[in-house]
């Protein structure tokens, strides 16, 4: 069984002005253990909605999905225990220190080991020691990013979800983020990753699903996508599918 299995997953929002808006229209994919799986799509394609459904923030209106064997609809707490969710919109508490933040998320995610040891390890691991006692609102963007990553993996979950993690970061911080994601893979984590940046997906992902208007148009590794489309660059591959759909 794959760590992530998605079958016919759908989400329709009700908007007062527009009526029913189908954000995700029955998608299927699975992530294999220890791989980086990329959801590649333009803004509004349905990437964030999909990841929010998988992390149980949103309730699907159709289909199903399992995370490490737990159904997202019937076992949301179990699902959240075994994943770490990171996105540009998941902010930290400005009035807590870096150490308190990591400790809070370690405890709340019910980490089974010694909490203090884990917190010390994460502070050391992500180079937070120098500002561990500083309040979050006093930290720079790069420092906050490190604390955010540390709180995402605070409870050592086997699955990590990164929703457009480099949005708003400068080049160096974005490269750091990519290195960290690779490192997590090296440590055996399964990573579900969404982006609209082609180069990022090209460099990081073992397999890529191209998502557009709530539908997955293609799902393969980069070589497979190249072979099917006859295009070399991911940008051209993406355009090939999206324009073909249009």
């Amino acid at each position, binding site marked *: 069984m794959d760590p992530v299995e998605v079958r016919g997953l759908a989400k329709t929002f009700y908007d*007062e*002005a527009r009526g029913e808006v189908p954000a995700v229209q029955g998608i299927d994919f699975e992530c294999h253990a220890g791989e980086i799986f990329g959801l590649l799509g333009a803004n509004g394609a349905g990437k964030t909605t999909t990841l929010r459904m998988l992390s149980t*923030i949103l*309730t699907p209106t159709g289909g199903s999905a399992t995370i490490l064997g737990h159904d997202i609809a019937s076992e949301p707490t179990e699902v959240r225990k075994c994943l770490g969710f990171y996105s540009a919109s998941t902010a930290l508490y400005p009035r*807590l220190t870096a150490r308190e933040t990591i400790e809070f*998320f370690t405890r*709340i995610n*019910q980490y089974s080991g010694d909490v203090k040891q884990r917190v010390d390890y994460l502070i050391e691991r992500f180079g937070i020691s120098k500002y561990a006692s500083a309040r979050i609102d006093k930290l720079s963007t790069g420092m906050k990013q490190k604390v955010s990553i540390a709180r995402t993996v605070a409870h050592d979950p086997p699955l990590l979800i990164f929703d457009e993690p480099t949005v708003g970061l400068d080049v160096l911080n974005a490269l750091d983020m990519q290195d960290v994601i690779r490192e997590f893979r090296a440590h055996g984590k399964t990573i579900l990753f969404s982006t609209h940046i082609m180069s990022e997906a090209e460099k990081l992902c073992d397999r890529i699903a191209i998502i557009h208007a709530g539908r997955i148009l293609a799902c393969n590794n980069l070589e497979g996508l190249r072979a099917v489309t006859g295009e070399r660059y991911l940008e051209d591959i993406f355009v090939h599918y999206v324009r073909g759909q249009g």
Partner: protein
Amino acid sequence: MNWRIVGVIFRNEIRMLLRDRRTIAVGVLLPLLIYPLMIYANRVTTRQREKNLTETVYKYAVSGSQAEQVRGLIARGQAAPPGKNASKSEEEGNFQGFRIQEVTTQDPAALLASGDIHFYLKGLSGKEADALPVEAAKPKKEQETGSSKPKATPEAVPARVAGVPLIQIYFQGDRDASQVGSSKMRDLLARARSLDRDVLLQQKGLPVDPALVMPSDETDVARAAQVTGSYVGRFLTFLMLMFLMSSSSIVAIDSIAGEKERGSLETLLTTAAKRMEIVAAKQLSIVSVALVITFIQIANLLAYVDFKLVALPKDWVIELPPVTVVTLLLLFTPMAAFVASILLMLSAYAKTYKEAQLYFFPVNLLSWVPALAGVLPGIALRSAIVLVPVANVSVAVREIMVGKFDWPMLAAVFAVMTLAAAWAVRASAKLLSKESLITASEADAADFAGGPVLFPKHVLRWYGVMAAVLFAVALNVPHLATFRAQVLFNELVIFLGASALMVWKYRLNVREAWALRPVNPLAWLGVLLAVPSGLIVATGVFRLADLIFPVPQRVLEQFGNEIMPKDVPHWQLFLFIAVLPAICEEIAFRGTLLYGLRRKLRPVGLVLTVGIIFGLFHVALFRILPTAFLGVILTTMALLTGSIFPGMVAHAANNALSLWLADSGFSLGNLSWIWYLSATAVFALAFYILYRSRNPYPGLRR
């Protein structure tokens, strides 16, 4: 529920709160500083006023053909021994330090206007007084016939006997000293007249001093603590609620709305904590902070009393035996939890901190209504009030403070409050699962599209503004206070005018927005049956409402006179009460409001919401329920027929029928319950016909 998780979140919330200097400053320190300052300033100004009024030598003038008699009366009033024929207020020192000085002038009105005198008296002979227009000759507050007490209400003042002299007192109501001086002079004249009367009676042969004939004596059998308790008990819940609301709001608004705005709520929702655990922890932190701040404020107030900064009235004895304290705590704790839950819901519903602050204002005002139930006379805890959250605590506290402990009912109050708080906590947790409310950053397409697409987002704001204008104008514009002017302004400007403005501003299709559609002919039969039966059923609902909020008969009569004045011709009453409201209110409520909300809510919620908003626009508290009921009926008609016209006809017929019944003196409120039950059956048949012939309102949310 994992209480360890709840504890982790709770500690986190408190830690963050304690680090928020602004919150601590605004919530705790500022009131601690402001209250003594306010109380001290108030005390200083009150004392200064009293001193000024005591030291004032009140200058007055006397004019008119009976000036000499007036002067004599004033002299006799001043010379009267204290206590003799004096009322209680006089004995309490009404005339102590009342120093007066007459100013001689030919034009007292000019001197009063220039401020050179505080008031003047005009003595008229009987003939002169008889020649005055009826209004001017009637004894009222600023006139003195020597036979009436100034504090008497106008209807209690006996009519003036023809041919007797009249003293008129003129003063400037906008000047404190003028008002106080004239009032004391009125009392002085009354005392003098009373003395004259006694002398006259004795001269005519009464063998004893009239003051000694049938003297009355009163004995208050209530203990001082009970009297104090009855005063304190009426307002204690209201005060507690105000403290709780203001202190809870500091934490509650930031608790979820602030988290949404910062983006940390989404982070929290992706953790292993359940929604219910998150809400419980936040609720717990709000209640804790609210109780701590409330106790600090109460201790603060008590400290002022102890330091004599706040002077308590004489004979105030507050007895708080342990049983009273424990019972009060048992009632106020679930009330605090309920308040916290409501504010948490509000915070969860708002997408931003600012939006939550906007919602807080009306919620705070609305909360005053049930909290003041204890002030209303005639409501006992052993009534349906026990089922109304907060109002039940208000009434229970009033009874407890006079030493009345109705244990089964107090247990019911506790249960109702606890259940209400639990329900509100669950509702808050549900709101955290509502995706449209989770993230604040979602851009709304409606804002970009504008026009008809934006209208549903703005519709409730419009009705909020309309209500504010309606209340503000009714209270502040005396020209519109008459029956005709008020109806014309409300119907044509507020309801019809604002509806037309909405159609214009949002470029709405008027036929769609106002549901101007043809009706299935069979539906008219349903309307015909629904009107009389609906009126009887509504009266039954009114009688049920009366069990919860009993309305004093005097208020009802006064209200009846205001909405159906006797001096307006029948055809005008028909126009103003039946025709205009049916057209204008239907366009406003079953037209634009219904159209704006049709996709926001499902049909049942839509019917209730439009009905309740319709009820709330009918101002008086005891009218809200019956008019909301009528609103629900009319909205259901609009949804079933897809048209505004059946509602218009039913509304006009309902009001005309009510008018005719009131005019003929027949009251539906005196019918036996069998009538109400029969009417309910006919009413159900009417709606069955409407349902069978339905042509549903288009575009409803399913």
